[in-house]
């Protein structure tokens, strides 16, 4: 149980790759309890001083071990409140961390979907120094990421923006439910035209993904019904859904079209309300 980041990084350097790093434990402990994971050594990050969540100018800086409850209680980035509110239940949110959510295999990882749409970046640290990556480059595949063996995820930085965002999670229950699909969307306007579009999807790929083709189709449009339909159709094409106990691949793909459409309609209605 290191008491500082330098101590944690030294321990990781000394004991990696056999050292299991744990923050809230909501990913690792079920595997250990089931005898699937048998780590020789475990490092808990709870007292490593990585749990600060603070606004710094136009950026929300989130320590990797800040809990999902802390994320729910901030008001600088409304989409992240919404994402935290839609992730698991109270007990898990009190233990589970924002950093840990980036390691949660699909259909988990609902916070990461919002972070993708918000163009967040992650800071990775080792005894060799720090580096910053766009979050879209952090997750490289199913349960795999860009971390080197001696690196820790230490901070997530989120630009604080004023434009409206949409976050929709569709599950089989109203709350505390794994996602069939999660959609996070954000539009930056240039007058009456879309200048930047972000559409992030959860539970329909090896990790939360951006629907880049759909985003491209929206740029330069007025976010009308035709553009929304085309973007939703593109997202259906480019997602990579899977079948599990929650939903089939076929159903997830159908729901991507529906919920991308709904998220964009929400943003279009908001823009119309502002007189665009």
């Amino acid at each position: 149980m290191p008491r500082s980041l330098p101590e944690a990084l030294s321990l990781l350097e000394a004991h990696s790759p056999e050292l299991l790093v744990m923050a809230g434990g909501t990913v690792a402990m079920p595997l250990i309890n089931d005898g699937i994971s048998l780590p020789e050594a475990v490092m808990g990050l709870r007292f490593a001083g990585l749990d600060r969540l603070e606004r710094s100018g136009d950026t929300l800086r989130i320590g990797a071990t800040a809990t999902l409850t802390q994320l729910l209680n901030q008001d600088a980035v409304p989409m992240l409140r919404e994402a935290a509110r839609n992730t698991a239940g109270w007990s898990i949110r009190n233990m589970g961390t924002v950093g840990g959510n980036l390691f949660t295999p699909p259909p988990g990882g609902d916070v990461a979907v919002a972070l993708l749409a918000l163009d967040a970046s992650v800071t990775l640290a080792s005894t060799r120094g720090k580096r910053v990556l766009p979050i879209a480059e952090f997750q490289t595949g199913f349960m795999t990421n860009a971390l080197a063996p001696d690196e820790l995820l230490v901070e997530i930085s989120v630009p604080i923006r004023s434009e409206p965002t949409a976050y929709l999670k569709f599950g089989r229950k109203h709350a505390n439910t794994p996602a069939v699909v999660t959609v996070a969307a954000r539009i930056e306007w240039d007058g009456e035209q879309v200048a930047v579009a972000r559409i992030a999807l959860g539970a329909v790929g090896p990790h939360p993904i951006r629907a880049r083709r759909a985003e491209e189709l929206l740029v330069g449009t007025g976010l009308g019904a035709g553009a929304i339909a085309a973007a939703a159709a593109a997202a259906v094409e480019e997602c990579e859904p899977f079948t599990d106990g929650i939903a089939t691949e076929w159903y997830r793909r159908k729901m991507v079209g529906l919920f991308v459409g709904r998220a964009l309609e929400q943003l279009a209605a908001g823009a119309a309300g502002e007189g665009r």
Partner: protein
Amino acid sequence: MNIRGSHTLNAPRASVFAAICDPDVLLGVIPGCREIEQTGDAEYHGLISLRLPGIVGTYRTIVRLVDAEAPSVGKLEGEVEGSLGTIKGLATFRLAESGSGTRIDYEGHAAIGGPLARLDGRFIEGLAASLINQGLRNLDTRLQGDHPARVATDRGQQTRETRA
């Protein structure tokens, strides 16, 4: 577990085949590979360490290249063993010229024993596909003379299919 997929590499077929048989190249492109040694004409022993969410461990690996017909076809027999269990598998790959590059098609199956076998099949298959894709992306980068980490996130041209 069954796995199948394809990937297009930007290098001639003969270079790709040679790289697949070269322990120095394999050490650099296989995700988590710490050591690899050629122990026979076509047999390799290696150590692979993986830091996965909630699961860390080192796995002893033996791979044999059998029925190889350079530069187009090969078969890999492999055994992976660690504290979390064992994986025994067989995979066939075919290399076809595709423009100035090479298309690799692979197909294989594996039997999993020990605690790992209790992990949901979707997890094992998703993970296998993810590691293979990352390895092939690293190989592509290596063949083009770059550093593997630079394009570790480029999804490239790939398709995959896994089924239990």
